[in-house]
């Protein structure tokens, strides 16, 4: 019963139940985890807001070069000024503005890759789980083949051959990262498939498409959301790695991974140029993973112990 799971997982319900001494030790872990989820969701919401409002929050144009103030220090260092609160990069571009616009790139990558790979993987997984037999064997074979090829290497090679750009990276990662969706959706569909309401829909003469989309999909949705969250985080990390190696998003776009790559040569004297985008990436992934873990906890009854 997904409904009741959600209710008892809300902090209020947990607080009421905490009075019951018998369940107290088990619940303390749960309350702590729902707090972790709140932190993650709050942080993620903040980053989303910052990304959406980037044009209004940025003090400067992210591509504008202030040649007098190149590699200016951020505000917490001795020579920092409020003109450039996070300093400037070696080309004199305002670091805060680039960070704000960079959030858009990371989020765009995470969301679009999760959508593309989610569509492919969910279709494959649901078909395999629903039909079983030869379909299942074919899908399992495709998943095994896909898993045996290192994502980062195949992505690097493809980007090197086709040429790097934001959309190429999204497409390549989207076409590569469907494996976990397929695996999870397959087993989730297998579980739902044998339930009464699917049998009822079948005997009522509903078409296969209708059963899959109307009966199965809504009931495997919790799993889908959890996988999508974790895959979005992994896609953001992969894009950052590709861009860091120079084979992802191309300059002058302010991708956080690319910014770290561009700052590498200056790491000795200007380590903040690496530390700022690196910390931002870590915070974003941290927030998404906390949300994913939290959602997993909310959705799965076995996760409650």
């Amino acid at each position, binding site marked *: 019963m997904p409904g009741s799971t959600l209710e008892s997982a809300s902090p209020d319900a947990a607080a009421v139940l905490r009075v019951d001494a018998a369940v107290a*030790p*088990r619940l*303390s*872990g749960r309350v*702590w985890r729902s707090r*972790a989820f709140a932190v993650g969701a709050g942080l993620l919401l903040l980053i989303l807001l910052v990304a959406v409002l980037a044009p209004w929050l940025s003090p400067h144009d992210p591509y504008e070069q202030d040649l007098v103030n190149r590699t200016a220090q951020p505000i917490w260092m001795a020579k920092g000024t409020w003109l450039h609160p996070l300093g400037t990069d070696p080309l004199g571009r305002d670091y805060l503005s680039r960070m704000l616009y960079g959030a858009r790139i990371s989020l765009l990558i995470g969301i679009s890759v999760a959508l593309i790979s989610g569509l492919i993987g969910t279709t494959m997984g649901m078909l395999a789980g629903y039909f079983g037999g030869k379909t299942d064997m074919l899908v399992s*074979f495709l998943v*095994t*083949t896909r*898993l*045996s*090829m*290192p*994502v*980062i*290497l*195949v992505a*690097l*090679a*493809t980007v*090197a*051959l*086709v040429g790097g750009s934001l959309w190429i990276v999204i497409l390549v990662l989207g076409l590569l990262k469907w494996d976990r969706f397929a695996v999870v959706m397959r087993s989730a569909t297998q579980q739902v498939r044998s339930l009464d309401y699917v049998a009822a829909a079948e005997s009522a003469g509903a078409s296969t498409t209708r059963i899959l989309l109307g009966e199965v999909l809504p009931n495997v949705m919790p799993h889908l959301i959890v996988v999508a969250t974790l895959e979005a985080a992994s896609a953001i*990390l992969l894009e*950052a*790695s590709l861009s*860091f*190696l*120079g*084979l992802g998003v191309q300059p002058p776009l302010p991708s956080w*991974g690319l910014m*770290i790559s561009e700052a*590498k040569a200056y*790491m*000795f004297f200007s*380590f903040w140029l*690496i530390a700022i985008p*690196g910390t931002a*990436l*870590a*915070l974003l*992934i*941290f927030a998404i*993973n*906390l949300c994913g*873990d939290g959602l997993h906890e909310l959705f799965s009854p076995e996760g409650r112990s």
Partner: protein
Amino acid sequence: MIAYALQRLGLAVLVGIAVSLIAFLLLRLSGDPATAIAGEGATQVDIELIRQTYGFDRPLPVQYVAWLGNLLRGDLGDSIYFKTPAGPLILSKLKTTLLLGFLALVFALAISLPLGVLAALYKNSWIDRLCLGTAVIGQALPNFFFALLLIMFFSISMRLLPVSGSDTWLHFIMPTIALGYYVAPAFMRLVRAGMIEVLEADYIRTARAKGLPRMQVVFKHALRNAVVPVVALTAVQLGYLLGGSVVIETIFALDGLGYLAYQSITFKDFPVMQAIVLLLSVIYVLLTLASDIANAWLDPRIRVA
């Protein structure tokens, strides 16, 4: 048992063929190799000559079969950049990468086993939360950012370790940490979950009731059973480690397969690129095969399913 092993072997061979087909098509379909080999400033006549010499003018299926035939005879083609046969070239670098992968795995297990056991023994205490919290933070840190942090601390501030190269064992310390820390959280969670489950089992209660020392029960009886799933995860994680070595070896200029992959990608050295993708995939397929068979041997239930 033999039937199961043969079935797995058959699947591995099929996956190997599929991977070779993808590796072949990936590099043939994403650009004209003759133009790339000829380089800038080549005339149309040069390109045509190269096309005929390399056999790029033949139909794709013919090219694939010829390529596969050469492959089975151990001929992986010649490196365009290094002007040497690709096979011996990649094999000479493989040792470094396998060593790095092995060290990273040992490092990851050395952290995750004790922490996982500790977290399970003190479930829901502050120790448990500290371990899980560290895991979430660890998984959020991009490996290239963490590598740069290590360089900043150990090489630039403390002046303890060399930044790049692969001459001494000192050169392997930072790459091992930078590659291994990322897989540790997954192992830790698995060990923790396994231990929690096993510690509640009847035979543990029996062992405790017999009056055996607590440590002996934990390490001799419980841990041995809790690590069975870790074996299965090891194969998957090795796949990640091999892929991740591209980023880490490039940062530390460690002279292995990952660095060679990066070089071949930036120089558009197709035969080497192809050979590396293929080799890493075959290694992964073999490891999965070994782990499947090892698991079936450890747990007879798997063989039947």
